[in-house]
């Protein structure tokens, strides 16, 4: 078809052949080098005044050669970073079904609040009287965390989930030591996040595995068998990493308490039960809350996370400093044992400063804008979405623990791929060609070739329908014998399949400046 100006308006038939280009770019997808591989020495993007002439006092320490910063104009620097940002796959660009990671939408309202100058442009060493609002916000966030968990005390400042775990376990250790109890063992279910046993080991405990039952859950008898006067704590995630609610959690808590031990809950999956269940009512003694999962603060790509820890009455006195306190005279920042009060026995100082202020603002903004009823609905929708995915795929894919309802994530194993020659890894790579970030794979370890899908409440029905249809199509293609297509995947991504084995066996850990082409040619 030609339009009135004679310009063709319909594309010619697309060619399936992969065209090599002169520049290495593909269409408008730019092959971007590292910034240190670009630029010229005689170029700069800023115009600084000549420094005033003054005698140098550096003596022999004065730099003799250029430090090799890339010389770029402002538009070149801008393009470099914009192009890099365009290579990112984010929750803002598509469905991000990484199970156990809770890649939910970060509401723009949170971002707006976090950028208010009273929160964004302050410094941790500023006089307290000038940051009263910010300190009050931290206290208010703590209050919401306590209300939603039914716990007695909170340490808001830990910087991430694993940091929170360490904080909680250190409080448990302090409580045991305070009563002269030198217990050496921590129980960790097989399906736990890897950080759980790592935390216990870091703090000096030896770890004893608790196997899951055939239904994917931890059974009280399996815990009781392993309890003794040497067990300091159990570290349990609920819902667990198989996406299942631990039904016997209160019986487990009772047994743990009867043995004089504590119950640490990994709060990574709290987002499935906010507004429905208060961990305090389940007998939890300490739990971290991943603000970046449950309360929608941004994560992925390295954070920052935030992992506040809540404590039961039994552990409250051992909560660490620093923390914030509201008094009649204003908001206080409690930094020392003495400031903490006569009855408090903080196990130590967990952070130098207040924590991730930006995340606190975002999390409280999420809480206040949703309200208790809104957060309850978010949990319900997250669970509903996961079950909708499970129901949409159950006939084609395989469920390791039967067809019962799941919580916020649907777990499949790789039995449905048996005989196709396609592995979980191939399947995940093929999803990239379809424009989806793969789900979590090969985790939890207790399930063979695991695929753990967490859609979160952010996805619409239309979005999930397309996702389910895509996965159904992939399964059919695997079963039709298109194994080569899977082994080659991803075929359409900027990079093809990476050699993970070689990357791990001979990692290249140091960047070396490439030779200028004129020298290299000699």
């Amino acid at each position: 078809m030609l339009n009135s100006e004679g310009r063709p308006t319909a594309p010619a038939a697309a060619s399936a052949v992969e065209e090599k280009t002169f520049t290495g770019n593909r269409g408008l997808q730019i092959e971007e080098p590292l910034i240190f591989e670009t630029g010229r020495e005689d170029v700069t993007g800023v115009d600084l005044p000549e420094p005033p002439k003054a005698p140098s006092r550096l003596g022999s320490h004065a730099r003799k050669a250029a430090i090799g910063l890339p010389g770029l104009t402002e538009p070149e620097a801008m393009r470099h970073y914009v192009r890099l940002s365009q290579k990112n796959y984010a929750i803002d660009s598509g469905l991000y079904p990484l199970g156990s990671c809770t890649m939910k939408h970060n509401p723009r309202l949170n971002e707006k609040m976090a950028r208010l100058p009273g929160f964004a442009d302050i410094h941790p060493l500023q006089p307290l009287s000038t940051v009263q609002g910010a300190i009050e916000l931290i206290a208010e966030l703590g209050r919401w965390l306590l209300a939603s968990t039914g716990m007695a005390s909170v340490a808001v400042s830990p910087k991430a989930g694993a940091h929170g775990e360490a904080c909680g376990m250190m409080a448990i250790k302090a409580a045991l030591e305070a009563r002269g109890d030198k217990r050496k063992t921590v129980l960790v279910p097989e399906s736990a996040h890897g950080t759980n046993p790592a935390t216990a080991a870091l703090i000096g405990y030896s770890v004893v595995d608790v196997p899951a039952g055939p239904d994917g859950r931890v059974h009280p008898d399996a815990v009781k068998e392993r309890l003794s006067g040497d067990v300091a704590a159990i570290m349990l995630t609920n819902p667990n990493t198989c996406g299942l609610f631990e039904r016997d959690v209160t019986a487990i808590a009772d047994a743990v308490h009867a043995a004089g031990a504590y119950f640490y809950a990994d709060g990574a999956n709290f987002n499935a039960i906010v507004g429905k269940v208060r961990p305090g009512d389940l007998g939890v003694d300490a739990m971290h809350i991943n603000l970046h999962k449950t309360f929608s603060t941004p994560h992925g790509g390295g954070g920052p996370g935030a992992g506040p820890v809540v404590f039961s009455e039994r552990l409250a006195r051992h909560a660490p400093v620093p923390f914030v306190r509201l008094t009649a005279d204003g908001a206080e920042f409690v930094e020392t044992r003495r400031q903490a009060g006569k009855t408090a026995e903080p196990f130590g100082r967990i952070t130098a400063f207040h924590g991730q202020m930006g995340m606190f603002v975002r999390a409280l903004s999420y809480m206040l804008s949703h309200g208790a009823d809104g957060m309850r609905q978010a949990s319900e929708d997250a669970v509903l979405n996961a079950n909708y995915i499970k129901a949409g795929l159950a006939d084609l894919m395989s469920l390791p623990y039967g067809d019962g309802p799941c919580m916020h994530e649907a777990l499949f194993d790789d039995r449905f791929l048996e005989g196709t020659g396609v592995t979980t890894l191939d399947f995940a790579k093929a999803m990239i060609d379809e424009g989806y970030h793969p789900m979590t794979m090969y985790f939890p370890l207790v399930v063979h070739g695991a695929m753990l899908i967490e859609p979160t409440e952010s996805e619409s029905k239309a979005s999930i329908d397309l996702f389910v249809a895509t996965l159904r199509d992939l399964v059919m293609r695997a079963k039709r014998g298109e194994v080569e297509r899977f082994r080659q995947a991803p075929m359409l991504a900027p990079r093809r399949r990476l050699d993970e084995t070689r990357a791990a066996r001979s990692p290249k850990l140091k960047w070396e400046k490439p030779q200028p082409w004129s020298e290299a040619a000699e």
Partner: protein
Amino acid sequence: MATRYTREHEWIRLEGGVATMGITPYAQEQLGDIVFVDLPEVGKKLAKGDEAAVVESVKAASEVYAPIAGEVIEVNSALTDSPGMVNESADGAGWFLKLKPANPGEVEALMDEAAYQAYLETI
């Protein structure tokens, strides 16, 4: 003497008073491409069931347990540079370490080839 096996997929073979051990072909297949093997110090005394080594693949890291009690008298240091030998020859060149058994009779009590194969059928 014939090779014996554990439920944790280690193999062990007693020859001239020295027990050589490694992980089974089944274990290496389950782990996938092995990228790192952490071996113990020579001279370390291990109780039966102690962590003897750690093996890391692109998929997961797992402990390797001592099938019997004994003292480490030699480790296969070639695995440090070529962990892939475990994939290529789990029950041969990819051996992990040699133990001087505290009680050689312990080896005899482990599963033999047929019992291990039968055990694999049940997994």
